């Protein structure tokens, strides 16, 4: 187990004891996404929207036949992400990423991003950027 994983495990214990209030969202997860439909997408970022109520980015994903689909990925709001040390340039057009998330219920090419990993293994928008930088 890495030091970072240790930290998260310990932090989770501390949180369990302190009953820290959760962050709150602008809208309900269940209204838009299906927790029973996880998805993994790999491709190149085409655009970042550092906007409210949620930041978003778009990824061109190639299927085995070479057809390209542009997927929309939803993040938290810029205020929450910036408090974690991330900025509008943490992810840029042209970056190669693998995104894990949950599919939209309405069948759109849309998912909410649970993790974003760059080609070099660096995680973006997870935890805080200072911890990512120290790994």
């Amino acid at each position: 187990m890495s030091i970072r994983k240790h930290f998260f495990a310990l932090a989770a214990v501390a949180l369990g004891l302190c009953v820290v209030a959760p962050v709150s969202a602008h809208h309900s997860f269940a209204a838009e996404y299906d927790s029973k439909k996880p998805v993994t997408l790999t491709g190149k970022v085409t655009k970042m929207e550092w906007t409210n109520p949620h930041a978003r980015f778009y990824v061109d994903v190639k299927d085995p036949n070479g057809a390209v689909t542009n997927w929309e990925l939803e993040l938290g709001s810029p205020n929450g992400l910036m408090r974690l040390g991330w900025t509008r340039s943490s992810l840029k057009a042209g970056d190669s990423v693998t995104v894990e998330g949950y599919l939209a219920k309405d069948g759109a090419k849309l998912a909410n991003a649970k993790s974003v990993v760059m080609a070099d293994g660096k995680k973006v928008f997870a935890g805080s950027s200072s911890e990512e930088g120290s790994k």
Partner: protein
Amino acid sequence: MRTTFFLAALCATAVAFAQAPKGSIAGAVTNPNGSQAVGVTVNARLTGSTTTARATTAAGGKFTLADLAPGSWDIAANVPALKGFEQKNVMVEAGKTTALNIRLEEGTQMSTLGEDTLAAMAHAKRHNAPTGPTPRTVDGKPDFSGVWWQPVVTDPGKPEWLPKAIEIARQRTENNRKDSPQAHCLPSAIVRARPLHQFVQSKDFLVEMFDDDSPGFHQIYLDGRQHPKEADYLWYGDSLGHWEGDTLVIDRVNFEEAVWLDQDSHPHSEMLHIIERYRRPDMGHLEQEITVEDPGVLAKPWTFKRVAELGPSETIREFMCTENNRDLDHMVGK
């Protein structure tokens, strides 16, 4: 000889009595996506008593609550940004292990990067409330000015909802809260604790600002005015404050019908009256006692308490909700 045997038997009985056989509860906790949840605290309470036990999940998400008295136990596990788990009346038998596997579920949260468990933990790490005496204004009143982290509920109270309110909340929840005003970039629930909020105080008013709500501010008048004779219904209500010693008492009425009362999707009626009592016992803490009176939705007044920590290095960022609210097109109900 006989006496010795008798004493030995007596002692053995006493020891056996003192060490009445215990039982345990064991299982594993998994995340909504099926991964193992490590480091989660599982709390147990002997039903109807103050006896508690606690275990933390280890590798594989596994936990064991050992040395539990036989009987009925209530189990709870809370992970930030996920729905709280609760199961009452888990039976424990002497000398046996009761199996309990916990599958955490997504809550009303978005649970996306920046609004997930890791974000909540990273935010919590930034909490470092300063110490020192209560700051005061030039006229000697406590000064609530500052940016405050989302308060932690210290006493949830016991709201007794009327059946009509329960039914509306159920319908809204079943419909995935699709029609919540907040999702439509209107103000969020009245008593919702926002991730951060800021107070700016002067002698005649207190302004509260948020950075995840629109329009993101409301005023509390401290200048001695009265509520308007003819109600002017407002999303944040009409809020007047007065001092009782070092406590600021805020009286709120005249709420717009469309605003939801709390994060559990309850409605309110035009009889809603909220009394908030704020104290700043020291530099770093803000205590809030909130009483909700509404004979239209509650059988009796509901009082709950929460405490916020000062976030001196935090700032409130602007939140233009309608800038890019693309979610509405994709939201589905029941």
